[in-house]
């Protein structure tokens, strides 16, 4: 649900960057989203279409790079991604600890004309 305000910030930054460079049209935007942000790409896409209307970013293609959270096994050191309802290591079954990945949320690049 917080995707509306998040997408507004995204569009604000895009327009600022575009203006700085005298860009007439933004054709593509690449956004990196970590799993732990809880952000849902489909909602961002929906709001983006509405919020970018009548701006240089109207019609731009949104590309999302989704980053999974990763855990490190306390026992065997294996790095793994979680499955539903467990944070345990798929190799040895011991408990895992979150490593610092999955909290990303930034604009990586834009393509312009």
């Amino acid at each position, binding site marked *: 649900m917080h995707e509306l305000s998040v997408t507004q910030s995204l569009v604000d930054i895009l327009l600022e960057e575009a203006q700085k460079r005298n860009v007439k049209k933004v054709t593509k935007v690449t956004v990196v989203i970590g799993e732990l942000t809880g952000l849902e790409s489909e909602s961002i896409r929906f709001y983006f279409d509405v919020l970018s209307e009548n701006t240089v970013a109207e019609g731009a293609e949104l590309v999302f790079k989704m980053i999974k959270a990763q855990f490190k096994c306390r026992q065997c050191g294996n790095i793994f991604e979680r499955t539903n309802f467990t944070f345990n290591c798929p190799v040895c079954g011991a408990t895992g600890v979150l490593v610092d990945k999955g909290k990303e949320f*930034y604009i990586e690049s834009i393509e312009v004309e």
Partner: protein
Amino acid sequence: MEEIVIIRDVLEANNNVASENKAIKDERNILMVNIIGSPGAGKTSFILRAIEHLKVPCGVIEGDVTSDIDAKKMAEKKIPVVQINTGGSCHLNAGSVNRALQSLSFDNGIVFIENVGNLICPSEFELGEDFKLAMANVPEGDDKPYKYPALFTKAKAVVLNKIDMLPYFEFDKKFFYDGIRALNPDAPIFEVSARTGEGFGEFAKWLEEEYQKFRQNK
């Protein structure tokens, strides 16, 4: 066609105001605690009960989509309080807390921010708080750390409220604790009941220590 690398944090505008809030509340000797839990988790009752036990003076910033029911409960107890109505938004942002801080006539103590009841959105927005407190409760189930990992990752401490309800619900404490420990190995977990007052002595002692640390580190 030209590709331009940008690398800009999408939430930078909010984060800048959050930094401003942090400076303001530090100046006023306020330790600010952002409480995040689902609707009906018992956040308001928890704050009222905690204030009863705390020796440090406290104020409250209430966040709700609409209504001032919670703020009135605080005001009845003569607790300095400011109500924020988000008007539909599912979380507090740094801007609304900035305005609330301006109208809150309270310094030198702890300010609880009661965020909008929601386990997802509020965890994404920095408010300038010293730390987040994640609140789970027994009736809502033991799976919350698995379903809402972001909040439990970012919280400095976790409160499990409604502990008096344990005999009536199938709540697997080990499963709950295991989930939190995977995300946040060192966070203290406080089992409390805002209804009976159980567990608040320990929580108040911890928070008072945090407040002392905050004052000493300044």
